């Protein structure tokens, strides 16, 4: 059974979702929670049986789909994707468990299970077309979640979300077809398998164009400045569960794809675009932090801060060395946990007051002490306090980029510190001072159902902040092999020197970064 555990992980929620149509709507929530728990247990089992000393792909499955055109059903997992899969399973579980009263709860849970299928699929697919299938398919459930359960502007927000991503991915698809064609030219057979593509060494100008095509697809998904405009709408209109999944998992698809596709396929182009992208990332960090400071709506604050942190992830990725990439992958998980938790927390207060305006609140610390504590913890994690989960990722990402450029890293580092201001300001507005608004006096504190979601998240936040090794080690092993691959594949001198060589006994002169 372990041989095809990845297929089970993908299709179990989908099959369960289809059977969900037969379940009575009163029992639907219990059904959803059970399915998601089984899925989470399976993902934990995957982690347990994962051999963290192996850097390559594990649990690979292959089934020819369109043989004559080189499309295969090809799955595999390595240290880079493993934890995002666990995270996706985890968030679907707590998302369904903490689901507040929604209309059409049955449709919602079935949609979430379908969404889970696509999320797992994206992270385990090793065939570009299979990856694209899940990547695109993930838009549909999200479209429905935002469009059917969202706020007043939900239709505009959901269609914008869909079209933005759809347009970007189509450009990426053309890029994929080019890759397959180049592979065909080089070897005489069609193949869309990413591992096959890794072996292909392309001339630099091809790399630049293809990098561009893939970049458009990924950058819209992340979303990187200036393609980020769909995200605040999507978050602003989405129901809590939608925002949680979107921030925790769906955005990670973009950054994950950078590491899976852009870096190892186009090492020279990645080096070429390193500084432009780093500058965009820093603009992203600073600009969205400033925008976040200007927001009145707590959910928008969290949304913009989430974009801001995605900037750090991109920066770490394009450090092109082991520290940076490992840090960025760790930060993906950290960001998933923290921003997911923050959106859940915003959902808690929204359920009680049906408003997200910060001016409506004040002095909540005395009314809802437990809520204030958890919010405070997550906020500290979000601004990158040491001993919380975000700190490890941010530190490693910046450390990685420090080897490429001191000044840009310094800028990014300061920007993150400045970013703390808006979060603290928001916290102050909501939680400190006197209770000014009468409606807030008798607000109930977080209830059991909400704690089910929030307590595990708090534990993870601190546990991985104090002791990140069990997660960092497998990530590190896989990243080392990718960095080595990039070094070996790169053709320009610039790339050779920027991307470190990890094999020490090479007779090349030791290449010092910078």
């Amino acid at each position, binding site marked *: 059974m372990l041989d095809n555990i990845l297929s089970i992980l993908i299709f179990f929620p989908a099959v369960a979702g289809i059977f969900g149509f037969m379940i009575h709507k009163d029992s639907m929530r219990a059904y959803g929670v059970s399915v998601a728990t089984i899925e989470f247990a399976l993902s934990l089992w995957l982690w347990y049986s994962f051999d963290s000393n192996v850097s390559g792909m594990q649990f690979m499955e292959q089934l020819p789909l369109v043989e004559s*055109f080189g499309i295969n059903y090809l799955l595999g997992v390595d240290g880079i994707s493993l934890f995002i899969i666990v995270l996706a399973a985890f968030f679907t579980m707590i998302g369904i468990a903490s689901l507040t009263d929604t209309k059409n709860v049955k449709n919602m849970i079935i949609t979430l299970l379908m969404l889970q299928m696509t999320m797992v699929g994206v992270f385990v697919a090793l065939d570009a077309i299979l990856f694209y299938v899940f990547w695109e*398919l993930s838009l549909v459930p999200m479209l429905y979640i935002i469009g059917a359960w969202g706020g007043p502007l939900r239709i505009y927000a959901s269609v914008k979300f869909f079209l933005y991503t759809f*347009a970007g991915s189509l450009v990426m698809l053309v890029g994929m077809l080019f890759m397959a064609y180049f592979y065909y030219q080089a070897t005489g057979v069609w193949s869309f398998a990413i591992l096959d593509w890794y072996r292909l060494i392309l001339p630099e100008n091809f790399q630049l164009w293809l990098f561009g095509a893939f970049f458009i697809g990924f950058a819209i998904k992340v979303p990187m400045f200036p393609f980020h405009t769909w995200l605040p709408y999507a978050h602003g209109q989405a129901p809590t569960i939608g925002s949680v999944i979107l921030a925790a998992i769906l955005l990670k698809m973009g950054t994950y794809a950078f590491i899976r596709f852009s870096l190892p396929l186009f090492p020279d182009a990645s080096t070429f675009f390193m500084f432009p992208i780093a500058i965009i990332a820093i603009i992203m960090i600073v600009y969205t932090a400033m925008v976040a400071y200007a927001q009145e709506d707590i959910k928008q604050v969290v949304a913009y801060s989430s974009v801001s942190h995605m900037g750090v992830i991109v920066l770490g990725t394009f450090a092109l060395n082991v520290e940076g990439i490992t840090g960025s992958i760790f930060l993906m998980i950290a960001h998933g946990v923290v921003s997911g938790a923050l959106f859940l927390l915003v959902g808690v207060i929204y359920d009680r007051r049906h408003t997200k305006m910060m001016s409506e609140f004040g002095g909540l610390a005395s009314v809802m002490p437990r809520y204030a504590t958890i919010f405070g913890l997550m906020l500290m994690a979000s601004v990158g306090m040491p001993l919380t989960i975000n700190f490890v990722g941010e530190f490693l990402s910046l450390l990685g980029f420090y080897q490429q450029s001191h000044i840009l890293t310094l800028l990014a580092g300061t920007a993150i510190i400045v970013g703390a201001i808006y979060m603290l300001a928001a916290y102050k507005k909501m939680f400190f001072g006197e209770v000014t608004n009468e409606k807030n006096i008798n607000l109930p504190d977080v209830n059991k159902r909400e704690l089910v979601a929030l307590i595990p998240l708090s534990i993870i936040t601190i546990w991985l902040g104090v002791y990140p090794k069990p997660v960092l080690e497998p990530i590190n092993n896989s990243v080392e092999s990718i960095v080595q691959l990039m070094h070996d594949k790169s053709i320009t001198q610039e790339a050779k020197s920027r991307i470190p060589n990890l094999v020490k006994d090479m007779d090349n002169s030791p290449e010092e970064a910078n």
Partner: protein
Amino acid sequence: MLEPVNISLESLNLVTLYPMLIPVIGALLIICIDIFKGGLDKSLYVVMSILFLLIDFSVLLTASDVFANDGTAIGVFDMMLIDGLAILSQFIIVGASIFFIPLAMSGKKFHEASYPEFFAMFLFTIAALQFMVSTDSLILIFVALETSSLAMYTMIAMHNRNKSFEAAVKYFTMGALAAGFYSFGAMVFYALTGSVEINQIATVLAANGYADMGYVLIGTVFMLAAIGFKVALIPFHTWAPDIYEGASASMAGFLSIVPKIALFVVAMRLFEFLIHSGVIWLEIILYAIVVITMTLSNIWALVQSDVKRMLAYSSISHAGFVMAAILIGTTQSNTALFLYWILFSFTNLGAFGMLWMTRQKELISSQTTDHGYEKFAGMIKTSPMAALVMGLFMLSLAGLPPFALFWGKLYIISSAVTAGYTFLALVMALNSAIAGYYYLKLIVYMFMKDPVEGMNSSVYMGNASLALKSILGFAALGTIFAFVALNPLLEFITAFVYNSGY
């Protein structure tokens, strides 16, 4: 004194005629039955048509075996040319028709299905289209074109609404114009080369090195206009939305698939050698038409308020997409054309079938057209299954993986990439993104808006019958599980296209 002409029956190779004769016999039989006993129920004629088409299909299977073993067959004074293209397109024509004809068994009674002649004409149309694809002769193509068109004008008018008459007359006028263009183009080619057979024309033109370039261009432009009218390429598309709106949804779906594939094959036969001959002008004209057709029709589709008109514009855009395959003109692109059209016919059959299922006899007061977007508002709440299936067809039309049409798009864009048409590939990709918006619009109405007063499942399922539901279920399954059949389909088509020399 004239010598008696002596022709052995064997040299005529009458086997090449069998596939076309079967629907003709079927049509005549239906007319005969009506003569002896009138007023029979439509179900008889529907089943008769299906049976004849099934026989036709099995004869085609034999023909495809023959082709696979012995290669291209020629017969009847070299009029008939049964090559891989002919067989593939006949498979699509007959196969798609088998799925369209049961749509006549709708729950409500509509005018056209009460005439036995409707079914006879349906079969005549199919026979004519089969002739059109299995010949090299411009004259036989013309005869087949006119036969099929005349039958279709009448079939549209039989829907017996004011808009249907308007549509039929419009289609007739436009069709007559196109026929004029066609005969003029054929005349120019005959004058230039002294032959009406396409391969002869190609040989003669190549032999004299395209000396009369001006005349070749005139002939080509007339031909392009004629074919453009028939497959609705911009700027010859103006009839399409009105006719789709006026015809019944089942008829519109038929029009959007079956006649077009026949014309694509004609275009492939005619333009392939012209493009490859280095007539750079033709390539530019075709390139422009393809890009304009894809883009403008998408933009028009954005602003439609009626789903059927939207689907009409979307069909135009898909036709432009497929025309791109002819422009590219490699084996891969020609394969992609057939693959695309097979997958498209599944999806479009489903989409138009769904519209047909929601057809009302009388509109309620808030409606202005038969299939306005508002009609489908909140459909997920009143008839969730129908909404899901309709949503599925829309996603497939938009090219969302893993549904049927995505694979067609993938393969066509890939063929553009392979042949070096990078710009075209990008235009095709971005057009798919634009198209996403209007397909999404229907999904937004169905899933995210609240139902309109008076709209409920009795409207949505009003025209449903067992036959209709099974066809739709079949189309839905085909749309979802297309990827299973992809590999054998691709290998089969590639072999046939390659062995026909395209």
